[in-house]
């Protein structure tokens, strides 16, 4: 079987993120790294391959983005992916979640994967939704925020993080699964693997190569546009209660919480 893993290059976490006011888009010129959640997706793919319960013949890393985005692919192949595909086209710039999901699904369709894995969220957009959009276009079942995958015959038995506790769900293949960071401890790529990564095939595709319809992608065709950005509102000053008499202090705190209906 074949596993495709979606990866993304994102701004380095320590770098202050800025929105360019004229384009309304995140500035990506600074230092970048591979999206940490995607590293968990690659590790999950490697563990399925090494676990031996499924016959995984190939792991393919896929990304969409400008030239520099290929760095995320280099990391993915150094961690064990066999080859990679870089979807890169000026026409794709500024695509919203819908357009991005569609474009990635077009590339994935040409690969006919048995399983698509990805991180549940990206460190920059944090939209959590690409997996579901991709699944919809591929007409595959989808699970999000998965923190455990077990092989169960030809299907996968997954634990999915829910608001209270976990959902245990069986999902047939092919499927699209987005994973949380609790799923595994990703390995580090060895230096030899990093040096060897450039020997693994990297295919660059344009939108036309992938059969992407031009009027469904890019900024102009995005269905959602950000109209305005604002700083988060400053926090109102808190109320400090001096602890002179503890039972009185507790009463004051309980009353404060009760007033705001914060006590069940």
């Amino acid at each position, binding site marked *: 079987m074949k596993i495709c893993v979606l990866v993304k290059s994102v701004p380095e976490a320590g770098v202050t993120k800025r929105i360019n006011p004229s384009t309304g888009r995140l500035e990506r010129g600074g230092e970048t790294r591979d999206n940490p959640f995607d590293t968990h997706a690659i590790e999950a793919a490697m563990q399925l391959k090494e676990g031996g319960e499924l016959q995984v013949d190939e792991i393919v890393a896929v990304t969409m983005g400008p030239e520099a985005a*290929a760095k995320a692919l280099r990391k993915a192949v150094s961690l064990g992916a066999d080859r990679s595909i870089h979807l890169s086209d000026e026409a794709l710039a500024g695509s919203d979640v819908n357009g991005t999901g569609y474009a990635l699904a077009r590339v994935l369709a040409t690969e006919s994967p048995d399983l698509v894995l990805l991180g549940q969220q990206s460190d920059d957009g944090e939209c959590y939704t690409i997996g579901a959009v991709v699944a919809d276009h591929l007409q595959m079942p989808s699970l999000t925020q998965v923190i455990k995958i077990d092989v169960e015959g030809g299907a996968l038995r997954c634990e999915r993080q829910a608001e209270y506790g976990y959902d245990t769900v069986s999902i047939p293949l092919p499927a699209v699964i987005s994973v949380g960071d609790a799923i595994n401890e990703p390995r580090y790529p060895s230096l030899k693997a990093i*040096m060897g990564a450039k020997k693994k095939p990297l295919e660059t595709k344009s939108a036309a190569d992938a059969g992407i319809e031009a009027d469904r992608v890019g900024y102009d065709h995005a269905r959602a546009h950000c109209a305005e950005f604002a700083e988060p509102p400053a926090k109102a000053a808190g109320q400090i209660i001096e602890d002179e008499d503890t039972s009185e202090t507790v009463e004051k705190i309980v009353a404060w919480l009760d007033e705001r209906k914060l006590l069940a």
Partner: protein
Amino acid sequence: MNFDLPDDHELIRRTVRDFAEQEVAPVAEELDRTKAFPYAIVKQLGELGLMGIPFPEEYGGAGADSLAYAIAVEELTRVDSSVAITLCAHTSLGTQPIYLFGSEEQKAEWLPKLTSGEVLGAFGLTEPEAGSDAGNVRTRASLNEDGWTINGAKQFITNAGTDISGVVCITARTGEDEISNLIVPNGTPGYFQGEPYRKMGWNASDTRPLTFEDCVVPEENLLGPRGAGFKQFLHVLDIGRIGVAAMGVGLAQGALDQALAYAKERRAFGKPISKFQAIQAKLADMATEIEAARLLVYKAARLKDQGRNFTLTAAQAKLKTGRLAVRCAEEAVQIHGGYGYIEEYPVCRMYRDAKILTIGEGTDEVQQMVIARALGA
């Protein structure tokens, strides 16, 4: 001209940074406080191929270049100097001489064990009365039918006395006006590792005096031609300076990281201290000097990788970065105020770790000698 690093090097930086932040940072304070050698971390470094970065794959190395090595050392030092110097001394000083000057048999015997990190390598040059003035070496080795009989003492030697130390290359007088390098495996009778020094910093690294008392090694443990020792170690020190210079940049950057994060958190007079001009000037100066120093280190590494003469640039890089590390560590402590004087904050350790960078691998004054000589002064 292009200042972007190749993708390989970026990924190496990213990997070592992640490793340093996730595996080294959480234990760095404890290792320093307990002066415990970081065995577990060295094992992981070996598994990741970081104990043999610039050596060819045929000898078990990663097949990367000096630039990759400098970047890895920089990123480790950004978090912890003891771990970094362990890797640095092992690579530049312990493994390098065998790789550069060893016979095929010597390389086959030692390099796979060294580059995998299975054993640590050390380099024994410094003596009570000889360091950069290595012509003054007193340790003697005389050749007879049993091999080389070594008598003498070395000091300030890194990596020679751990549980996984495997070998030391030492300089010894093998004739009246003749210095040669010899390979001495740990466990050779007559080769003793003294008690660890009580150092100002680099607490989790292994540094000891060594003594040789009628220590006999086979004749074939001579490294390269007899009498070539002087030239050999000068070359080894040139290379070693790139590594130590990378440590200087890394430490300075680590100090800036800590100072910036603290200055943004710490409030005084109603606002973060990072908003005060006096603090901003310190941060801006540190960042600017670090960027300049980093370019100098990378240039030295690039010159070496291109097979060009790098003696001058490596000495300049070492001089610049050692001073910078001391200054940035001091400024970082200053920005932390009283907290900077408390060991729970990494800048306190960095302040102690920095000073050796103006001394080890040739003092600043020796670098100035090397630089002035290259200028024709």
